[in-house]
């Protein structure tokens, strides 16, 4: 578990994401560990696909390729969450989750948190950029992709540095 609670958006103790037993999403989670956002892209029909599946939903080619995608998107929807549905959030107060669409990846959508003041005004359509959030000390270690408004600063920043390649391979 993280010893630096201020380095992550939400407190430690929430469920840890892992790939399925058949490893369908393993390239996605491994990518986040290495500061890379990976999304499936069909080389035959150029369809983007997220979440992952064993075949392209458009042309039925198996095992769509995983390609790296730029860390920018647009807020498609949002919610400010007040009620703690987990004991780790009991004293935490409100936080914001956003649904971000990625125009450069066929408009696929991803859920993350919107960094910054939980009471900020959230605008659907606002431009956001991705920020990796590494949980090195969790067991097993994992990484998330968070978002922040581009107006707040345009330089990509890691909340925690990425693990070395050797470390992340295990």
């Amino acid at each position: 578990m993280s010893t630096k609670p201020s380095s992550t958006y939400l407190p430690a103790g929430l469920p840890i994401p892992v790939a399925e037993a058949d490893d369908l999403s393993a390239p996605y989670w491994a990518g986040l560990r290495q500061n890379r956002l990976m999304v499936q892209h069909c080389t035959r029909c150029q369809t983007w696909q997220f979440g992952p599946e064993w075949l392209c939903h458009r042309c039925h080619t198996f095992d769509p390729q995983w390609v790296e995608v730029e860390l920018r998107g647009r807020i498609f929807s949002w919610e400010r969450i007040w009620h703690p549905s987990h004991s780790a959030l009991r004293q935490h107060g409100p936080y914001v989750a956003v649904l971000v669409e990625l125009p450069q990846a066929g408009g696929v959508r991803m859920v993350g948190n919107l960094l910054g003041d939980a009471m900020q005004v959230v605008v659907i359509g606002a431009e956001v950029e991705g920020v990796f959030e590494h949980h090195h000390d969790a067991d097993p270690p994992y990484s998330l992709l968070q978002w922040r408004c581009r107006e707040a600063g345009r330089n990509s920043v890691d909340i925690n540095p990425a693990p070395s390649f050797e470390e992340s391979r295990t």
Partner: protein
Amino acid sequence: MARADRTLRGRVAVVGIGETEYDRHGASPDPEFKLALKAILATCEDAGLDPREIDGFASYSDDRSEASRLAAALGTRRLRAATMQWGGGGGGCCAAVANAAASIVGGLADCVVVFRSLAQGQYGRFGQTTGIDTISGEKAYLMPYGVLAPPQRFAMRVRRYMHEHGVRQEALRAIALASYHHAQANPRAVMYGKPLDAAKYDASRWIAEPFHLYDCCMENDGAAALLVVAEERAGDFRHKPVYVLGAAVGSGYRTGAIPHNSPLYASASFDTVAPDLYRMAGLGPADVGVVQCYENFTGGVVMALAEHGFFKPEEANDFLRLENLVAPFGRLPLNTSGGNLAECYMHGFELLLEAVRQVRGTSTSQVKRNDVAMVIGGPMVTPVSNLLLASEETL
């Protein structure tokens, strides 16, 4: 034969309904399986049927009260149908009735009990998620970000719909007020004697914006059941038979694309399912006298009613006013027992019983136009399902 010529319309009838006492989660003195047995026996009593004549069970949402155990416990003479509707949480409540009807029309069974038994106090509340170490699949993309329980999983869908169509918070509030209004006349309701008004709603805490506390369903313990038989036998029981006029199940193109990647995101998943229902029933929204619509969250009701053609999304603010939604004379009386918000979260099955009561004429908030009653199950999930019930005169 084309699908449009194969139909459940008028082929089966609901001839018995029954439920246990409805309790707050953790308050039921009975184990969940015992609740199922009690609801089924109450249903047979209502119909005037020897429970040993049941030859099929249908349920949904992976109900733990398994068909073969029920058949053994009740000593039914034989088992002919045991159907479980895949996935979708409460989206299967009407589908379970459709599956029972299909079993009967297809000649597999004669006398099918459809039920849901759910004691959240005994097996875990839907609204709490503590105790999970690692997670994979859809929830892995959500839970680490604090998108844990159903309110958080559905709030962004509703927010997007409100954004696209200019729907205001007051429209959601009217749906909560209608359920609580009707619960005050219903002694079975968990919220009986606990009225809600606009000021109390507005002052209630946020769960996940745009959902206040009163936009969210309860978490309860109980069981409910109904009995379906072929139309030839419909007149052999104690009460006026209530016929299945139509049913539909499913969802549209890639509704199941996780996480939150369904192409038609701001939707209750009825874009294809509502037209299927009306086609089988041979009628339209103007013919429906009363609606029971599954309220996991009020915002899902707004979308579901629009997708069933009762108003256009842009008309939601005007249509969804309390006076339009209450029995006996509202334009569209809604959730007349109190529903998931205020009667009992019986995973939508209480809505089916209420629709039967409306057609029978025995609701605690009886409507005048009760010849055709609609039930809508599980907005925003997949698969969803819906049902039209009707009196014999309507056939």
